[in-house]
């Protein structure tokens, strides 16, 4: 780092962390000064949350050193870090909804806080300290998101934290609430508390942070004072270069409109309308939680909606369950492979055949021969590596499991293939094979909706890209004509 900080509260040196198949953090170094607001930016999957979890003690690092407040920290637990003065406020709050505000602040420290009276009294003082008037006897389940955040901050302060890490603190806050959060951050800074501010929202980073670290693919790209950076440069560092030959050439023949979605509205989605054409790959770009998955689930009939109008090939389609979705020629490769896609204790062949059992019928019975033939066909066609069609699917690698799910849906000859994070946790070789499969599908006249957190993937595979932020479609782009920066800019909102 070119600029030396005089008083360092947290110093991370050469930290690495590998998960099976993925190098989540690669030689990451970072220093946070006392009383400094330090921003960390990066795309989904850049390694921010892994770093955070190592600091808090949820994960253990593979290599490197972490020094907090002069102490070298090897192994730790979330509770130990808290007591040491390092608090983390996660995006998903660690609060117990059925309990009161006061008790949540002193969770597990009932005696320390001095019983029920002490708990509420001290909680009230802490909340007043950050200018919040939340009643300490209210239940957390009755609070708004911003109020819950105040409770989390009060909880962090109750440990006399020296460093507070905030993960996406601004998501789902209103303008007003955001301003209040800004005040609190400034107040904490003036009291000498350091803040590690993790966010996608660049405006806030520029507004609050003294320093900014940009991460990408598990690396620290650079750390600089916020005043020396501009927005464009930062987005450039986040997105990075794309390596062209990771992707097959995208098919160019796009046909006539196939599906029209209009006025799709739920609690989270606000009046979504778009069209999908025949032979097209339509990419959805947005941050985690922007509403991408919710849109496709609603279209497919997996979630209830307030309002939606879908027309497929000119006909009005009434879709209220995944079964209806399937009837209209849709196929859905879900985001959470293990929970929503695979039937883990079952064999490869029954996982492949489960969406098209009808095709296996011979009279009233299922024909094992037909099933074996179907599975064999997909195994050789999709290059699925498995000891045999009867092996349990749980023993396959992530990429091969995903190919089985895709194979399951190809059997139904879908017109619309919805793929939610189809290459998550899959190695590079298998990724390319999945891209080739997608290409084949559209060349055969099918259409694909592709959701991915990997920007290069969406940009290189899609014919058209929709950006989604806060449950709205914020833009439509031709990825060949518009730069990644511009699209990212719009997706950030």
């Amino acid at each position, binding site marked *: 780092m070119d600029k030396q900080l005089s008083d360092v509260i947290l110093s991370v040196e050469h930290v690495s962390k590998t998960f099976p198949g993925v190098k989540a953090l690669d030689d990451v170094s970072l220093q946070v000064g006392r009383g400094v607001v330090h921003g960390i930016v990066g795309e989904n999957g850049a390694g921010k949350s892994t770093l955070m979890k190592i600091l808090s003690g949820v994960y253990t690092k593979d290599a490197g050193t972490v020094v907090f407040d002069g102490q070298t920290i090897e192994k730790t637990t979330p509770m130990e870090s808290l007591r040491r003065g390092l608090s983390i406020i996660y995006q998903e709050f660690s609060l117990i909804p059925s309990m009161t505000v006061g008790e949540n602040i002193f969770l597990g420290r009932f005696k320390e806080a001095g019983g029920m009276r002490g708990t509420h009294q001290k909680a009230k003082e802490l909340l007043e300290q950050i200018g919040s008037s939340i009643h300490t006897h209210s239940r957390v389940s009755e609070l708004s998101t911003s109020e819950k955040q105040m409770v989390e901050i009060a909880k962090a302060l109750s440990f006399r934290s020296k460093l507070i890490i905030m993960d996406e603190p601004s998501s789902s806050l209103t303008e007003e609430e955001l301003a209040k959060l800004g005040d609190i951050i400034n107040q904490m800074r003036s009291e000498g508390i350091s803040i590690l501010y993790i966010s996608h929202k660049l405006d806030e980073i520029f507004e609050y942070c003294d320093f900014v670290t940009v991460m990408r693919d598990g690396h620290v790209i650079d750390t600089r004072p916020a005043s020396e950076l501009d927005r464009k440069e930062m987005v450039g560092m986040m997105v990075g270069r794309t390596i062209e030959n990771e992707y097959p050439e995208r098919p160019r023949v796009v046909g006539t409109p196939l599906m029209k979605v209009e006025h799709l509205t739920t609690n989270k989605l606000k009046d979504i309308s778009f069209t999908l054409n025949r032979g097209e790959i339509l990419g959805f770009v947005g941050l985690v939680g922007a509403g991408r998955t919710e849109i496709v689930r609603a279209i497919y009939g997996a979630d209830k909606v307030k309002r939606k109008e879908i027309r497929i090939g000119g006909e009005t389609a009434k879709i209220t369950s*995944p*079964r209806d979705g399937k009837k209209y020629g849709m196929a859905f490769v879900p985001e959470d492979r293990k929970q929503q896609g695979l*039937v*883990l*204790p*079952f064999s490869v062949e029954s996982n492949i055949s489960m969406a098209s*059992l009808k095709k296996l019928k011979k009279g009233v019975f*299922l024909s094992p021969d037909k099933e074996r033939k179907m599975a064999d066909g997909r195994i050789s066609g999709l290059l699925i590596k498995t000891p045999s069609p009867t092996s349990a699917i749980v023993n396959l690698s992530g990429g091969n499991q995903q190919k089985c799910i895709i194979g399951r849906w190809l059997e139904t000859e879908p017109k619309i293939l919805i793929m939610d994070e189809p290459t998550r946790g899959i190695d590079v070789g298998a990724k390319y094979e999945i891209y080739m499969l997608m290409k084949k599908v559209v060349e055969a006249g099918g259409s694909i909706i592709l959701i991915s957190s990997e920007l290069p993937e969406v940009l290189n595979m899609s014919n058209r890209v929709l950006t989604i932020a806060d449950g709205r479609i914020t833009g439509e782009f031709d990825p060949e004509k518009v730069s990644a920066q511009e699209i990212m800019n719009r997706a950030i909102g």
Partner: protein
Amino acid sequence: MDAKTHIGYFVKNNLVLVTIMILTTATALIEPKFLTVANLGNLMNQFGPLSFVALGMTLAIIGGFIDLSVAGIVSLCAVFTISMIDVLGQGGALIAGLMAGAAMGLLNAFIVVSCGALTQAKALFITYGLSAVYSAAALLYTDGATQHMSHLTSRTDLFRAVGSGRAGFIPASFLLFIVIMALLHIFLVRTQTGREICLTGANITAADLSGIPVKRRITLVFVLSGMLSAFGAIVLFSRITTASPLLGANYETNAILAVVVGGTSLAGGRGSVVRTMLGVMLVILLSNCLNLLGVSTYLQSVCKGAVLIIAIWLDRRRAK
């Protein structure tokens, strides 16, 4: 692999068979008459009411649920069917009894599905509550009195044949059990609906997202379980020629015992009715063995409770 690990592997994977062999040998040693043809008939005869209820329970467990209402269904169906014999004749009563079981299963499914208790744990409470309702209804229906087949004016030979008839030395109820078990086995393994039930039991979310009508499959599972319990009830009262409104007490735990001991996993999706047959056999042999040893019926129920807990525990450890 040397011989020792080989044997260990076999034992581990065929725990039920090994236990059955051990129990058979032990019983034969204590009681040499055990291995005679006459006793074989007796043994088959013990594949009575419980085995049918256990078949229904197997379906429920494979479908991802545990149907605790079977105790109530057995009680209510028994007293209902017996009371219908004079009204509808024996053929009509038999059908009415099975229909009543199916209707109760349908009610179970309706309640479970309508309040969204689609996990095993949630549905447990509901079916247990339903069992209490059915049991109370049985008491109400008979005013607490035991019904006797001998008090009826109509012919009851059909029921008597089902309950205690024999073809040669093979009891009719055993033949029926084998036939129903075979049909269910084919249904689960070889038909689309059967496969869909297994998939729903193993991962209801994935099955739903793959377009399988999960709610209908759950309903079917409960209906079949109800019908098989009704059939168990019919075999039961036909055999003892009386039906008390408390007839079904403890049937749920015994049925679960047979299913889990047989090796069908409580996790859902995996298992088979053939395994349940082995489970029932094990339970019967265990009772036989304990009887021969002169263990009281009460201590036997202690043993069964202990075996149930241990079997669930082992099932859970295997799942981990």
